């Protein structure tokens, strides 16, 4: 942080510490802050009171502030900003910060701190915030001198957004907020040691293109890095796939980076991915990974993962390359820049795919597709959860729709049955798997897109985890929709207990769910229940046409499990397609130990 020798710089103005922060936020283009006040940040809230062009959304719990900022960031490509107080304010934010770290979401979180002379004295509402958040942020700062404040603020935004994005905490002792502080504009800040490489090694990109042109059974495996790189990167992916005719699969975090309606799209891959995507991954000879990290939910048993493939891995983060799976051609760089270079080279060299082998590869892929792994049978009474999401998808196609989810079965069904044709439309907690993420994320998304249709596809258990935010949603008149796939179980826990623990359903049933409609009403919203198939369409119509906060309580088949599935510890080609298969597929002892 001390960096280069001190070059004389002239501050553009002198303000209070709190004034510097507000000025820095404005200069960074911040429009919205999600926060919750408290003693240590009162000077900053006082400054916000005097400012007209920074909107503050008052959440009801600091965890939700971070998730809301994540939803805001994910749906706009901007940086999400959070403001919380010291001690419990900061510790409550930890889950959100960890979530943002795992899913590479750019967040700047300002935390209050006790005055510098009280640090380390167990003062009221003191917590070692930089110590606690060191492991759950990309970087964090404790500002102990007011002269450093504007440099730290600008650097925090730079670090959050550049390279692999992530959350950055700036811990602000109360006396610093009062102190006189010089303000330096973003262009005048001191240099930062953090300079990620973005261009990609030209030789390796050319090598990769040549390899892809020779591939007989190629596949493109895209991840959240494409979304983070931006809509341009997603467009380039589409261009490359159309140029080559290669099949494309996406991770949970990557959904929307390639149009779900494109015939080259094989669906999501991984534990609950499609049969065709996983089999294509297993049998491919050249794999092009763009911005995905070979997560254990994607690879299945690592020693059996895609055994015959030569792997090209494009990632902005060096530590994601060769972490779980060795890359034959590692390319460190930003997806957009690398794809631009690769496509240019492809065109310049007039490369073309091997048409014949690609044709037989597609025949093979289509034979896996013909298994129709996402097929389900809907009778005319009890609603199947898959059917509910499918109908929701079909009925919202002519709308500007954003979907967030909580975590569990409903999340996987949403990923399977809701198709995304554009990036930034899908907000879900992938890496950390945070129940309670969806509602605040939907809230943040709605703040960014006030006229859009924003729906939190939720589970009955997850929605209870951050439901205090109904109050925030009402306060700001956010017409968020909550679509609860209600089966009265923690469905994914129940499913694993059925598969791996002899159907001993330990603590996974919720005895006393609230009446969700009355709950919505008590906050000032509205809602409807769908008990049978006949109710479903009507409830969806009512919900999407409502201009208020709305809860749709969809009572679904209670013991439905989520398929297809790669049992833990199994390989891609050992997928089970339905409950019938589970009797033959015994989870291995090693697999049992996996989460």
């Amino acid at each position, binding site marked *: 942080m001390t960096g280069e020798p001190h070059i004389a710089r002239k501050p553009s103005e002198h303000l209070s510490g709190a004034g510097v922060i507000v000025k820095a936020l404005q200069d960074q283009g911040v429009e919205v802050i999600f926060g919750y006040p408290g003693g240590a940040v009162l000077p900053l809230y006082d400054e916000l009171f005097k400012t007209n062009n920074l909107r503050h959304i008052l959440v009801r719990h600091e965890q939700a502030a971070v998730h809301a900022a994540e939803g805001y960031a994910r749906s706009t490509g901007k940086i999400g900003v959070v403001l919380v107080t010291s001690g419990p304010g900061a510790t409550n934010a930890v889950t959100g910060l960890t979530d943002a770290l795992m899913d590479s979401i750019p967040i700047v979180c300002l935390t209050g701190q006790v005055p510098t002379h009280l640090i380390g004295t167990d003062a009221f509402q003191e917590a070692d915030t930089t110590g606690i958040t*060191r492991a759950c942020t990309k970087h964090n700062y404790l500002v102990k001198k007011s002269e450093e404040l504007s440099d730290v603020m600008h650097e925090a935004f730079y670090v959050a957004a550049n390279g692999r994005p992530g959350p950055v905490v700036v811990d602000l002792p109360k006396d610093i907020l009062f102190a006189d502080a010089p303000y330096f504009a973003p262009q005048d800040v001191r240099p930062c040691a953090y*300079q990620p490489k973005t261009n990609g090694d030209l030789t390796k990109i050319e090598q990769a293109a040549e390899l892809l042109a020779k591939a007989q059974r190629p596949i493109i495996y895209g991840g959240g890095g494409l979304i983070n790189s931006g809509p341009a990167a997603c467009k380039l992916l589409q261009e490359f796939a159309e140029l080559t005719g290669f099949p494309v699969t996406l991770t949970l975090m990557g959904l929307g980076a390639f149009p779900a309606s494109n015939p080259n799209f094989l669906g999501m891959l991984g534990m609950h991915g499609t049969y065709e995507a996983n089999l294509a991954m297993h049998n491919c000879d050249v794999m092009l990974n763009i911005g995905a990290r070979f997560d254990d939910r994607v690879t299945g048993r690592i020693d059996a993962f895609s055994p015959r493939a030569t792997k090209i891995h494009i990632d902005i983060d060096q530590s994601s390359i060769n972490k779980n799976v060795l890359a034959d051609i590692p390319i460190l760089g930003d997806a957009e820049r690398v794809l631009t270079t690769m496509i240019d080279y492809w065109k310049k060299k007039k490369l073309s795919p091997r048409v014949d082998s690609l044709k037989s590869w597609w025949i093979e892929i289509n034979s896996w597709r013909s298994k129709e792994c996402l097929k389900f049978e809907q009778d005319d009474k009890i609603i199947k959860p898959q059917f509910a999401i499918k109908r929701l998808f079909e009925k919202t196609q002519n709308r500007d729709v954003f979907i967030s989810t909580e975590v569990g079965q409903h999340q996987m069904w949403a990923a399977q049955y809701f198709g995304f044709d554009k990036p930034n439309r899908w907000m879900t907690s992938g890496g950390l798997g945070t129940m309670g993420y969806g509602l605040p994320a939907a809230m943040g998304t709605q703040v960014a897109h006030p006229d859009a249709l924003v729906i939190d596809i939720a589970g009955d258990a997850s929605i209870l985890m951050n439901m205090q935010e109904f109050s925030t949603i009402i306060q700001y008149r956010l017409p968020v929709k909550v679509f609860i796939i209600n089966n009265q179980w923690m469905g994914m826990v129940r499913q694993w207990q059925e598969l791996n623990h002899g159907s001993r359903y330990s603590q996974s049933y919720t005895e006393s769910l609230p009446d969700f409609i009355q709950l919505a009403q008590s906050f000032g919203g509205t809602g409807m229940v769908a008990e049978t198939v006949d109710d479903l369409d009507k409830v969806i119509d009512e919900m999407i046409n409502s201009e208020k906060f709305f809860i749709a309580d969809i009572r679904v088949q209670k013991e439905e499990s989520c398929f297809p599935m790669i049992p833990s510890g199994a390989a891609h080609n050992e997928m089970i397609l339905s409950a019938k298969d589970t009797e033959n597929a015994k989870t291995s002892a090693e697999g049992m130990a996996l989460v």
Partner: protein
Amino acid sequence: MSSQKPNSDRRHTIAVLVDNEPGVLARVIGLFAGRGYNIESLTVSEVDAVKGYSRITIVTSGTDMVIEQIKALLDRLVPVHMVEDLTLQGPCLERELGLVKVVNAGENRIEALRIADMFRARAIDSTLNSFVFELTGSPKKLNAFIELMSGLGETEITRGGVVAMARGSGIGLRNAKS
């Protein structure tokens, strides 16, 4: 991934140039602790007071994949300017300072002095029944000296940890990122 046996553990000496700021060591150590990587030796001290740079020398061991991961994780820390794997770069110098106290009498005392002389260790403190020797050298040399001394009486040992540098005329960690 140059090694013949990618899955065998290998000892690596890694030099890291960082900003000398509070918490930077905690970040480096936390990175190892959080992932269960082992630190065999760690030294840190400021090397450039004007620019405020400290140099950390870490000795660790792991498979090629683990070592690559460690270096990548170190490199993405914001206050880190440069990471160098001295082991991969070819021959490097490793030196360590040790203080060895040995408590003994009679013949063993004379033997201790004789061995110290051979190792070019200096006696920097003496009582009628003890010496404190100061010794610098490679970690192996220190190990050998300590082993011999422990046969000559009760010993107390403190070691400074490895400091290392590449041989030759190349200046490694000067070209920091910024």
